[in-house]
């Protein structure tokens, strides 16, 4: 759908974290909240409404898709989400953008030069 070119605006922390959670697994809503909280050490805590505000937008923009297949004994109210190729690219673009920013900070000696 929408093509996210290099000039696409930066993603919000919350959106980026949601995409990051889905990079290597398909998750349902509550699991996304838990995964984000766990990975960030509770620094980013999504509420149900912020999650679905983002999920709806990401679905509309084609960054996410719903997974139709599921385990048989799972609660039918649970819906699983998966990154689309566009979504994966958006997440990678954002990560690269952050890396470029970090590199600039390093060049200015704001951060120690690692490696």
């Amino acid at each position, binding site marked *: 759908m929408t093509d996210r070119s290099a000039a696409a605006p930066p993603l919000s922390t919350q959106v980026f974290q949601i995409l990051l959670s889905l990079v290597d697994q398909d998750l349902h809503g509550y699991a996304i*909240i838990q995964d984000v909280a766990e990975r960030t050490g509770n620094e980013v805590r999504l*509420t*149900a409404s912020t*999650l*679905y*505000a983002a*999920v709806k937008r990401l679905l509309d923009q084609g960054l996410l898709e719903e997974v139709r297949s599921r385990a048989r004994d799972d609660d039918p109210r*649970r819906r699983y989400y998966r990154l689309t190729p566009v979504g994966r690219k958006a997440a990678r673009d954002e990560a690269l953008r952050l890396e470029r920013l970090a590199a600039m900070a390093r060049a200015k000696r704001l951060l120690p030069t690692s490696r």
Partner: protein
Amino acid sequence: MTIRLYRALVALLLPQGFNDAFGEELVFVYAELDREARRRGGTAEAVRALVGEIPGLVRLAIRERRTHRTRRAHRVTPRLEENMFDSIGQDASFAIRSLRRSVGFTIVAVGTLALGIGANTAIFSVVNSVLLSPLKLHDPDRLLAVGEDSKAATTLSVKSTSPASFFDWKISSQTMDLGAYDAGYNRTLTGMGEPQQMVGTQVVGGLMDVLGVRPMIGRNLTVTDENPGAPPVFVISFDAWHRLFGENRDVIGKTLTLNGVARTLVGVMPAGFTFPAAPNDLWFPGQLDAASRANRDQYFLTVVGRLHTGASLQRARVEMNAVMDRLTRDWPKYNQGNRIVVEPLRDTIVGSVQSRLLVLMGAVVFVLLITCANIGNLLVARAAARRREIAVRRALGAGTGRISRQLITESLLLAVAGGIAGIAIGKGFLKLLLAGQVTTNLPRVEEIALDGRVLMFTLAVSLIVGLLFGCMPAWHLTRERFTDGLREGARGGARHQWTRNTLVVVEVALAMVLLAGAGLLLRSFALMERVDTGVKPDQVATFSIIKRKPDPTFVPALLERIRGIPGVQSVAITSMMPMSGRGIGAWFNRIDRPLPDNVQPTGEAYRVVTPEYFATVGIPLTAGRMFDANDRREAPAIIVNEALVKKYYPNEKPLGKPVYLGAPDNRLFDSAPIVGIVGDTRDVGLGSDPLPTVYIPIAVMRNWPFYSLVIRHSGSSAPIIASARRIVRDIDPTIPITNVQTLSEIVSNATGAARWSTTLVGVFAGVALVTAILGVFGLLSYTVTQRARELGIRIALGASSGGVQSLVLSRGLALVGAGLAAGLVGALVLTRFMQSLLYGVTPTDPVTFAGVSALLMLTATAASVIPARRATRIDPIIALRAE
């Protein structure tokens, strides 16, 4: 409950389209978050999680509705397709838009509401924890305070009793299990770093079982521990365990040295158990020997009872009356004229502050009501200004219900926003209250917190408040034909004016009640501050020490060396600081005029002092002489205060008359003449009469174990205290120094409770006054604008500016006068409930009432003058053309 609320919010706020796609899943995920929050921290945490969800939900709602609308704008929606929730959602989004259009109004409304709700939240947190929540003990409703009081006492109080009486009660009672304690059983802990003072309580009669508390580790104290000769044991509080052992669970059986005695630790009590009052570090079994158990004249046991299942408070009282009748027959000398008082334990713990807190709660509720009236007024004005818009909407087919709902939604939104901000403000305010030591002298202060119940209270208050002022403009609509709005132009009708007048009158009346209350408190506080304390507190440093091991050289050596500190003018010892309570008492007996056998003598307070005490704290000698070095155990002498002379020697010369203290067979000393009379001190509070007091030289009471030192000095107290500390450590390193404070601090603590409630009520009354006056000002300004045409015509026809001015002014004063009158009546009714807080003034004190009436009238007049002057400047041409 929280989940259902969330579901309702989702249905209410979010558009149909979003809910069809995600609604159920959203609620489902929220339910899991809710479960997680409850696991983490119970209902309070769940409520917090719900509150945390609201901002996100509102943002989502606004965005979804915006996109929804732009999409819908392209198709025609038949009216019937809209459902109830959709139209409520529409109301909400319309309300948000309408409030965003008038930012100033919204900020003022939400801000004042937040202040009002915040103050309520903070004070309610205190009331909730101190007065409403049950004591943190097992089945606290069955716990009773049992005590003795004189039959002649007018107000009931539960006083302590003697060991023999306690054991008699315990054996006789069929309705209660009884236990007793002696608080203030403080001990010095040595052998674990610096000597430390531990707060302890001695328990008697298996009190721990009566309270129903179980130790967290180890075992409880039992009745067998109380047998004389049983190994010395004790249990420790959770806090002390944490402090001393860092929560090491392997402490049972450890031996601690307390006052030089090795005692075995047998149990650690659960966190939060601090009976009888926080802090309490240790509990000891009271090992009373046969003589102590038979003692009937030393009143030091406070008795607690637990009602048996099926027994009632009433039955316990009847039973105890019968017990007392029997005891009076058996021991007339000790029990004549006394009775046993049985009260719920909770009442005796919070009784003293109940009225103070309720008055405060009343004050903040009043402030909130005034705020509501003010915002209601603003909303009515807004509705009046929007009449044309509303009339057009009705003409186009919007029903009255639909428009009322719209207006109520608007105010509910305001109220909820105010409530959320109010929680934050309340939290800050509560922190301020606790930090400002406003709550010193408050029982259960350690339990005060903003918990789930307080949040629920705030939420409920916000909703009620929103409905309250939201209904005002809505109510108007239902009584109006919409054509009126179109015909009359933008001006408000007479009915609006009537409501607004009523609201202002109510505001002024409420403010008047609050002002009267604050005025009374302020006046009694001022009178109390002016009371002569009986001491000269400036430049006197004090601290306490405990010395259990008798040592005749200790006191003289200590005083001698402290006297040598540069800057020290005089130093003395007393068993009890002035202005800090009654302290110990003993029966006062005149040897020259003994009482008949069946009359029980009265206990009077006594203090053990060194000769220089009176000069050091500034108590004047009015007759006779001071103590000197010749007043010893072998030749005792006493000094009494004027209150005692007034009570026992009216129209007599007391000097030289012999007396003894204590029971005939248990005297503090055999006989001593009164050698001096000194001035009174207000030991039990500035608001109470001075107690009759006896002073005994310390040389007579040789082994007195604990002292307070008073040091009159020049310059600052810090170096003096530091030197004194060094001297004490030098003489005996096992002696702890506690309660370092100046006499001025002690004196100001005595008025602490009165000071904080007076200050708070004063602040609330000030807020109420300002709010009410703003209401008057707002209404008059509005009236002038509304009546511009009429006033313009009057001016055009030759009305003088003075005439126009007085027209507006008299209108304002009429409103204020009506409010004042109503407020006076309300105040006369309500201030009666403050009786117990007042000192030196009656609840209907005419001076106070006249004063606050004048204040209110004056400020109201000032507020009316501005719009009145503006009225005289109306240009008739412009006013007439404006239509």
